[in-house]
């Protein structure tokens, strides 16, 4: 009976998340189609969905697997630039099929990157792991800064020093030009596609967390030695979480990249990794609903604060500090908890009467 109750709360929570995402989509889609939305907000819908995916995928590593990763933006950029290459080489296909193929290829390549980086990184623990992920994030950025990709009728050309080394025919076009990034990207991302991707990723993560594998991952997080003595391989399960998370970040990067006509590697630096980590921490580590809401609010907030002009980012920082202080204040938390307990008691009493 107890198990049943527990499972039902878990799936209740999962369905709450689906509900939030679907509600988010329905509200904004109606606003867009009826023209009742400011162009400022309309332009942000796709990035918001991408950041939500980033937040929940990082939450899988930070919250569920319990490893602090500071290089998540690196996987996003791998996905983003992969999507740029794929979509540019599929100019004859329709927008929808190009988008789908781009997302899938981006996720696969990012997963490969995640797997390769995971091999050395996951042998470490705690702070050391955090520092090494940070380093890998920067390495990815710097590699992309030296990457030149061109396309002509013979296919895709890669070079690592300058565009001249691409050796393309006269009709060739440079897609990714080192630090100048990619320009002329096909803008094929849509809000619907971003929402569907968000939903799929949410379903995958929540089912993973509630599965046998998910419980193994959490057991390793809670007590590595105890879990190992039960016969669980920490490396295997951590690697699984890390790779899945990287793949999802790659998919988010693909949708993000195909929403803008230009993309520079510099965008995905340490700051972006930290931004995503802030979503996770602020929304609550391990809490998917929190991550989604935090990502949505914190992406829109700087735009809403534009009326403060130069003091905008200052106000943003103060809001962040206040939220952190309030949510971490035991006294306040206790008060909120007792309030809800009392409310529940009153309700249940009322129900019995």
């Amino acid at each position: 009976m107890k198990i049943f109750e527990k499972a039902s709360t878990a799936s209740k929570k999962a369905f709450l998340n689906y509900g939030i995402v679907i509600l988010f989509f329905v509200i904004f889609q109606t606003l867009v189609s009826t023209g009742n939305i400011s162009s400022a907000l309309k332009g942000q819908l796709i990035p918001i969905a991408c950041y939500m995916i980033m937040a929940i995928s990082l939450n899988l590593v930070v919250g569920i697997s319990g490893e602090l990763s500071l290089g998540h933006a690196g996987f996003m950029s791998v996905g983003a630039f992969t999507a740029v290459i794929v979509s540019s080489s599929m100019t004859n296909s329709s927008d929808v099929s190009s988008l789908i193929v781009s997302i899938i290829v981006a996720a696969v390549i990012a997963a490969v990157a995640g797997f390769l980086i995971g091999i050395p990184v996951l042998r470490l623990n705690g702070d050391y792991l955090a520092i090494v992920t940070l380093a890998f994030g920067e390495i990815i950025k710097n590699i992309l800064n030296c990457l030149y990709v061109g396309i002509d009728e013979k296919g895709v050309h890669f070079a690592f020093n300058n565009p001249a080394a691409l050796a393309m025919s006269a009709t060739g076009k440079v897609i990714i030009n080192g630090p100048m990034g990619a320009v002329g990207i096909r803008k094929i991302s849509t809000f619907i596609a971003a929402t569907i991707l968000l939903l799929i990723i949410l379903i995958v993560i929540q089912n993973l967390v509630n599965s046998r594998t998910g419980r193994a991952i959490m057991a390793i997080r809670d007590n590595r030695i105890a879990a190992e003595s039960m016969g669980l391989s920490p490396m295997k399960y951590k690697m699984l979480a890390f790779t899945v998370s990287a793949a999802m970040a790659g998919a988010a990067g693909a949708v993000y990249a195909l929403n803008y006509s230009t993309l520079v590697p510099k965008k995905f630096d340490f700051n972006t990794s930290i931004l995503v980590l802030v979503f996770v921490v602020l929304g609550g580590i391990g809490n998917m609903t929190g991550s989604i809401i935090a990502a949505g609010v914190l992406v829109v907030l700087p735009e809403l604060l534009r009326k403060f002009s130069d003091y905008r980012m200052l106000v943003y920082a103060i809001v962040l500090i206040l939220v952190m202080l309030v949510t971490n204040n035991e006294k306040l938390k206790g008060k909120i908890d007792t309030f809800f307990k009392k409310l529940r008691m009153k309700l249940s009493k009322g129900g019995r009467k």
Partner: protein
Amino acid sequence: MKKKLLSLILAGAMVMAMAGCTGNTEPTTPATSGAEGTEGTAATGDGALTGTLKLGVIGPLTGGAAIYGNAVVNGTQIAVDEINAAGTGFTIELQAQDDEHDAEKSVNAYHQLQDWGVQAIAGTVTTSPCIAVSAEANTDRVFMLTPSASATSVTEGKDNVFQLCFADPNQGSASAQYIYDNKLATKVAIIYNNADAYSTGIYQTFKAKAEELGLEIVSETTFTDDTTDFSVQVGDAQSSGADLVFLPIYYTPASLILKQADSIGYAPEFFGVDGMDGILTIEGFDTSLAEGVMLLTPFSADATDDLTKNFVEKFTEKYGEVPSQFAADGYDCAYAIKAALEFYAAKNGGLDVTDLSAEELCEILISVFTDPEFSADGVTGLGMVWDVNGQVNKEPKAVVIKDGVYVGM
């Protein structure tokens, strides 16, 4: 509890300190002085330009590139103040939005301006945000005149985007041409920022042109945004015997390179581009190190023509510093748009811009800017004309630093 209070205070202090870095410009308030009465007047038929234009500026007002964004906004503000004070019945309402030198934020800023009802955009200031915004503006049909985004991909394939600054290829090849024509060097070293679109863009075109002309490039070294030690790069240039170092970079790293070269007693010729402009205003930089540095720039603050004098005087009075080339670009943007509207008004018997939509204004401005008869005068060049690709055609000026000031060559 005490600890918590302390941490709160410390956090607050840190935030304040960080806010201090964002530049001390006053928030740009939309200029809405005078001329309210002229709103709504129809085209009078006498070729006059009337009404209020809502002009938007997008640029980095905070963050690492804030100095460029603020310079452009301040320069544009001076032009707008002048235009509004002239009392010709034409006024400009200015709104500046911050993009933190980030493409995503820049598109957000652009949408914010659209909600405000922007009719034309003087922006965006930096290159990669400009590429993102210009793609949006191209679909929405909003006219853009960028003061300083110099990459060719800013204007490529977009008929509504025009540049007031030289495009990168022009800068790179003009520099190579200049060095070759004036026989400044036989062996050239290049130090460039390979994490920066602007720097890499100029480097590529410089190299191509230099090879074509037969200039020998003996050393090519790179650095990234957070490099503070240039001993390797400068050392490489020295050991390869370069007698001229080409620096297609912004002035902050350039100042460090000059210092480094001085400390190892290496004194080649240094040649920069417009990003070098501003090197004399760095706090704590010994300007004697920059002695003899040459740079290619469209604007020099000590030019003696009336336009420049007037602009420099007003700018110095209002903001307490000598305007950089970016401020001059911003100033010229506002005047170029005004000149274009006047040109149209004179040809079509008057124009009232107040009620024009951004789309209508866009078509008008495109038709004028691509009109071979149209040219605009400004502090960055007289008789600027634009080709159909949106690139400007004006004379680059080479200046050399002598006794701490720019002197024309």
